[in-house]
């Protein structure tokens, strides 16, 4: 039984990493959003499974939040926004997909290399989970760094944060997990609203199209 | 008793140099004239000149300051004190310890300081030329002189002239390269300092070539007399320096009796005459050089002096 539960958790966590790679791979916004929804679903599954095996009911809430908020609300909202703001659909990436993927693989390798030093008396599951969580986090950051337009950067941030949730839930009996996931959802909501409010079309870097070139910090 | 003798010697020395200085000039001129196949003025002509100048009225430029009028006496005083402390016929000078060789050079330098200032006091361009050239020459001549002093002092373990002179008579001096270098250098410095050909021509009145004459251009009457005497004295100082440092033979030791002093005096006069002849011969043989070749000339002197010193420094280690 324990072996089985472990394998499932392992599988879910691993697939989360896989989905992160898929995110990394996308070059069209809609597809990106869909894949992100998938990402959230997988996350909620794995959180739910954690809740099940550690019979920690409060984690179900986290799973629910993940499912409802991240898998449905946010993608839809972003979808709308893309239409509303007339953001053009394909993602301009820094550098082509190939190197980016390689970099991603490198990051996963790095996170494994870092995490597998952990002496195994910390329980195995936690350790594996951490390795995957770390790689998800790094991949999310990689997406933020290599994508030029706001929406995909938000998606990157959210996937990063999924990694966090994964880690948090992996930590047995960690207090405040739910609160934290809620807090993060709020944070993301802020970001999304911000994008909408400030009508950030292409990039994070400027608040308004007119201001695009005018202000960069110290150009008085 | 000894004190009285020393005082006598010191006093004799002081007045001897003043008395002798114009004569030296006269002899020099005579030799030169002879070498140029002229009869030339008599050798006591300089005394007559001085006398005449003294009795003439003195013309002072309108905007001359007190410095201009005080300068001649200061110049003369500086030179005279220097001359009084250089052993001429005897080393036993009462006050020779009150200023060593460095101080004597410095005394001459302070005389020059006032001379140069006097040259600038009226505010004429010629005075300026003279002063600026004079100080330029001095800036090269003085280090050379100091280097010479170094090499002598390193040999004699002293900068006291009388001590050095006694050391030079004494047998342990031997034949040294540094000394040869030093004497050559000293002669060059002497020529430069006294404004003789090839550095400057004391007889010239072509303004652009003159240095010393340009500075004293505005002087007349008694002031000029004092200055002339001072410059004659300066020449004598250098000759006696060379004499007592490099040909000290016959100079009376500090404990000599009156015979010794007579001998010394005779020897001294002989040396001076000899030196002035050499100078005259040199001056007739050579042509005056452009002002801006003077640095090379003096630079050579400086290098010789430095070389001599370095040799001594190094040989001391062997």
């Amino acid at each position, binding site marked *: 039984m324990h072996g089985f539960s472990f394998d499932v958790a392992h599988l879910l966590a691993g697939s989360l990493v896989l989905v992160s790679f898929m995110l990394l791979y996308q070059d069209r916004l809609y597809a990106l959003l869909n894949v992100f929804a998938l990402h959230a679903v997988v996350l909620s599954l794995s959180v739910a499974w954690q809740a099940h095996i550690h019979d920690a009911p409060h984690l179900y809430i986290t799973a629910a939040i993940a499912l409802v908020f991240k898998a449905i609300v946010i993608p839809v909202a972003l979808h709308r926004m893309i239409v509303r703001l007339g953001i053009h659909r394909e993602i301009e990436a820094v550098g082509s997909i190939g190197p980016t993927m390689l970099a991603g693989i490198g990051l996963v390798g790095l996170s494994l290399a870092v995490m597998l030093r952990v002496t195994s008396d910390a329980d195995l599951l936690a350790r594996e989970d951490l390795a995957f969580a770390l790689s998800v986090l790094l991949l999310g950051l990689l997406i933020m760094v290599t994508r030029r337009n706001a929406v995909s950067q938000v998606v990157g941030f959210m996937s990063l944060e999924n990694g966090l949730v994964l880690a948090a839930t992996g930590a047995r009996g960690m207090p405040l997990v739910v609160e934290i996931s809620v807090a993060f959802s709020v944070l993301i909501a802020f970001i999304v609203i911000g994008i909408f409010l400030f009508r950030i079309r292409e990039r994070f870097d400027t608040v308004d199209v007119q201001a695009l070139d005018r202000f960069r910090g110290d150009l008085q | 008793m000894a004190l009285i003798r020393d005082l006598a010697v010191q006093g004799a020395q002081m007045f001897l140099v003043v008395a002798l200085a114009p004569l030296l000039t006269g002899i020099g001129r005579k030799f030169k004239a002879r070498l140029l196949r002229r009869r030339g003025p008599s050798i006591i002509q300089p005394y007559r000149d001085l006398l005449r100048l003294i009795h003439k009225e003195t013309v002072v430029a309108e905007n001359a300051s007190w410095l201009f009028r005080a300068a001649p006496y200061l110049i003369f005083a500086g030179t005279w004190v220097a001359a009084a402390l250089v052993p001429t016929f005897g080393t036993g000078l009462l006050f020779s310890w*009150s200023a060593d060789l460095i101080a004597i050079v410095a005394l001459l330098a302070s005389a020059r300081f006032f001379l140069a200032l006097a040259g600038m006091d009226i505010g004429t361009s010629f005075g300026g030329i003279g002063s600026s050239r004079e100080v330029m020459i001095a*800036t090269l001549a003085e280090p050379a002189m100091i280097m010479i002093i170094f090499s002598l002092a390193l040999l004699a373990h002293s900068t006291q002239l009388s001590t050095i002179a006694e050391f030079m008579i004494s047998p342990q001096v031997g034949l040294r390269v540094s000394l040869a270098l030093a004497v050559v250098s000293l002669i060059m410095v002497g020529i430069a300092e006294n404004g003789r050909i090839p550095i400057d021509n004391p007889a010239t009145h072509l303004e652009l070539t003159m240095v010393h004459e340009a500075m004293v251009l505005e002087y007349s009457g008694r002031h000029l007399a004092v200055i002339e005497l001072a410059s004659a004295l300066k020449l004598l100082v250098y000759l006696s320096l060379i004499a007592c440092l490099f040909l000290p033979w016959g100079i009376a030791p500090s404990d000599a009796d009156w015979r010794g002093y007579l001998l010394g005096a005779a020897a001294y006069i002989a040396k001076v005459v000899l030196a002035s002849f050499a100078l005259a011969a040199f001056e007739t043989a050579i042509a005056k050089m452009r002002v801006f070749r003077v640095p090379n000339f003096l630079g050579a002197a400086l290098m010789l002096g430095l070389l001599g010193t370095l040799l001594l420094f190094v040989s001391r280690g062997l």
Partner: protein
Amino acid sequence: MTALPTTVSLLGVATLLGFSLAALAIGRLRAATPLIYIASFAVSLGLLANAARALIGGAPPEIISLPLGLPWVGAHFRVDALAAFFLAVVNLGGAAASLYAVGYGRHETSPMRVLPLFPAFLAGMNLVVLADDAFTFLLAWEFMSLASWGLVMAHHRLPENAHAGYIYVLMASFGTFALLLAFGLLAGPDGSYAFAAMRAAHPAAFQAGLVLLLVLIGAGSKAGLVPLHVWLPLAHPAAPSHVSALMSGVMTKVAVYAVIRVVFDLLGPPSWWWGILVLVPAAASAVMGVLYALLERDLKRVLAYSTIENIGFIFVGLGLALAFRADGFVAASVLALTAALFHVVNHSLLKSLLFFGSGAVASATGTRDMENQGGLIHRMPVTAFAVLAGCFGIAALPPLNAFASEWLTFQAILLSPALPQWGLKLLVPAVGALLALAVALAAACFVRVFGVAFLGRARSERAASARETDGFSLAAMLGLAALCLVAGVLPGLLIDAISPAVHAIAGSQMPTQAHVAWLSIVPIAESRSSYNGLLVFIFIALSAGMTASAIHVLASRKTRRAPAWDCGFPDASPVIQYTAGSFAQPIRRVFATTLFQAREHVSMPKPGDLRPARLQVDVQDLVWNWLYAPLATAVAVVSDRLNVLQFLTIRRYLSLVFLALVTLLAVLAIWR
């Protein structure tokens, strides 16, 4: 029960600080200026007396430690003979400057920017000398720099002053950091910052060498050693003249004190090559400084450059002392040290005097440019006389004081063949030659100064209508001149006065001079060398007097005033006089052509062209061009390059964060 010197000094310092606070309060009043200056004059005199007592009295040094500064170290103050000597120098200069300023201060346009800082500056310099632990020392040191910076910036509206102040404060804090590192090395990792502890601990040879180097950089930059001198000729003239006098005459000596204190006192036994480390920059400063001065036409900058030269002289003395000390020639080392300290006194006297004179001239003629002065000996006779004395003295001519100290230096050089090391054997005579050159050049330089500024005919309207300055200034100048003469004719007494200071750090001292017959000085032995300023002075006076009287008896008294003869040229306008530039021309051609890349460009108009012919001379400061300009450009370039980072996009910033993270993780991955 008489109060102990340290206590008195501290009280005096406190009073001075009080004055600067008072000046803040009442500075706006007209009466404030004389009030403050008279007060600080009095206090300086008191401190001077106190220091002299401590120097001569030779009581064991009293240590005071207050619960200030570094908490677990505390602030230590101590007046040993060395400190007492320098306190005397500082306060003598301070008293003179205050007295001078009582009159000169009236010309001050913005007293509120000078009055509060002047006593603070004096206090700072006193504190540096009093300090007995590294923290207090550096605190006072930097306080002194700041106060003088404020004084330099007193007339801040002139751009060149602002520039000067900037360079100055930059170099000052550079120096402070060097000293800080030196003290850090001396104090060791557990931070024993008290000088006593440093004295006890002897660092290893290499470390000690490093400390020496750092101290030379740190204190040398304050003293103006080439090549760290660049700020000095900018900052010293920029300040009001009495402050310039303090900075040039006194503050540089405080830097000398720092070197002596650390190198001779704290650092333990020297190695022979330290001498080289000190001698080379010292000789360079001596010659370069006076050459700069010869090429300069701004009166106060000439003086500042000549300070560099004299500092060179002092450091040569220190270098020789180190070399001798390393080889165990105590007598010689003591002689060199005494020469250095003697020159410290002389230079502070002379330089203060000259700066006072230049201040008087500047406020009388409204310019510092010698080319616009001239003929002042007629308009300001007394000032002229004082300045003449100063020029004569600083040209190291007998019978004035600077000659005596330089004579001692030469005597020390003459002892150096005994040194076993070849490096020194070859170096020292060369140094001697350079010093001789420097002396000769100095004479030329000050003939130029006095001849152009005071003699000849007035070169400008203002100069023609100049007025003699006030009594206080004259009193200060004449007093200093008198002191110079005394120090010149009675060098023996001064040497004896200096001896305790020398003894305090060298453990030995020169033979007492007071007993020598006729008051002459005999550094080593009667037979070797001796000099008697008094006799020389008397002789000169006598023979000049005799001649003059003789002439006046024998000669005709007839004197006629007439236009200048000038080889029959009609009396042209004053502009045909020899200018400072033309006076320096021969020397410039000889020395500066290579050393300063001096070049002359003549532009001769074609016949019929009405444009005047021009002779233009441009002189490069190679030290600046090769050392400082590149640094400035480097900083500019780097900051331009980095400045891009201010204008990145958020994505780029994120990638920076990302890179940082990945790097650290990678480090973790490889670590162990």
